[in-house]
């Protein structure tokens, strides 16, 4: 009898404190490393990744949150579809290939357009300066300067250097995400 009561109280506790669901949008140019990052978050094998046609979605439990991460293809042809996924986004993660200097301008432009979107206004943004494992990668500070990140005033933001391949820096970024989930400015 006692054990039944105990079980019921545990069940009740579970029911009363369900994980808060968080909608995370993962965007960036093609070959930035979004899918690798997604699989790294879900602790899946990252050696068979192919270009994303359409989108991938995965749910990850982290620090009392249920993170629903939407990874949308970054190909130019698919970018017009990004807007279909803006609604109800809690955190935007923008991924940059730090070694692809030729496309810094392009990626900066896409980010600026995203930050101007009404549906994403006030949404916290985490910028992953990915591929730091490559020798030619630009440091996060250089990217932040190049993209004029310090001019962002309408939301909380953070730039985090990482390597989705080795996992370095990824957890630090996600810790920031969990801390700032509820920091959306209305």
């Amino acid at each position, binding site marked *: 009898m006692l054990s039944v009561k105990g079980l019921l109280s545990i069940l009740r506790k579970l029911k009363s404190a369900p994980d808060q669901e968080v909608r995370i949008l993962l965007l960036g140019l093609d070959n930035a490393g979004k899918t690798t990052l997604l699989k790294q978050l879900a602790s899946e094998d990252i050696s068979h990744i*192919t270009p994303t046609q359409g989108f991938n979605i995965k749910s990850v439990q982290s620090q009392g949150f249920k993170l629903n991460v939407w990874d949308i293809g970054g190909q*130019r042809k*698919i970018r017009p579809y990004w807007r*279909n996924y803006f609604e109800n986004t809690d955190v935007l993660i923008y991924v940059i290939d730090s070694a692809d200097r030729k496309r810094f301008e392009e990626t900066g432009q896409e980010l600026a357009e995203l930050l101007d979107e009404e549906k994403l206004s006030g949404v916290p943004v985490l910028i992953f300066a990915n591929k730091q494992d490559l020798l030619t990668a630009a440091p996060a500070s250089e990217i932040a300067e190049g993209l004029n990140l310090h001019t962002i005033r309408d939301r909380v933001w953070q730039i985090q250097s990482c390597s989705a391949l080795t996992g370095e820096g990824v957890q630090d970024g996600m810790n920031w995400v969990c801390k700032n989930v509820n920091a959306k400015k209305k």
Partner: protein
Amino acid sequence: MMKHFMRMLLQVWLYSYCICLWRCLKFIVRKLTGRCELQRICYNNKPGATRTMKIETSLKNSKNKLLQTAVSVHPDAIEKTIDDIMVLKKINLDTNPQLGVSLQACLLQIVGYRNLVVEIEKLRRESFDSDNPEHEEMLFKLWSLLKPGIPLQSRISKQWSEIGFQGDDPKTDFRGMGLLGLSSLLYFAEWDTTSALQILSDCLHPKYSNFNKAEWEKKKFDKAIGYSFAIVGINITDLAYNLLISGALKTHLYNVAPEAPALKHFQQTFCYLILEFHKFWIEEDPLDIMEFNRVRNKFHKKILKQLQNLDMALCPHFAASEDVINI
């Protein structure tokens, strides 16, 4: 805790009991029919996946070292292994002339499949390297097959997206599939150029291609784009690779390759898969490209289900060379 332990003990005991029972049964049947399990499999099953897969299971589960290791011998050692098995099983070759040949054919397929897995994995692990002239040549060949008569303006060019690469340099699109992705695409474009061009054209023109241009503009279907041919080809390579590695492709390859399955059989399988996927995509009539992964997963399940049928062959059979034809 104790209960859990007891249950586990019971399971282990049950398992060993079943194995023991199975061995006794095999012993009795052997005494009654005068044939060993390998013989019985060859007599009762037609050549192809039905027979080869049963032989493979039987060899792997054998407690004899020679039989166990037979599935992983070097192809050149197959004949010798068969002779050893004949001696071990005390089979009289004069009264059973067929058996050795049949077993040899099975072993050739089993060993061949294992070697094909190694070969494909090696090709997949080789990254596309723009400093390697061979790789570059393959890429240019793919362009000239898919865009006959249209010269590429430069190596780095927006034109690449016309055949379905993402950006202006295809190099970054091969990713986890490496050279395997490129060689599959190239094989398809060479072997069945007509179909490749047809698929490419379907992809470039919106799915409602039966409308004329005016109707098209009226309906504003400009967003209803097809998929990107090259990167979907790389994605379907991943599907074929997964089927091979998981062993699901055994039914198909044991049925179509009377000798050892080789690279060309894998590539032919890829051609079949991409053609079938294209048909499937059109039948599914997805709203837009964002449905790609849903359609792809459904297609994957469909193929897996088909491969459960032991008589399944995904593409036409290949002719066996003279010495295997009479098995």
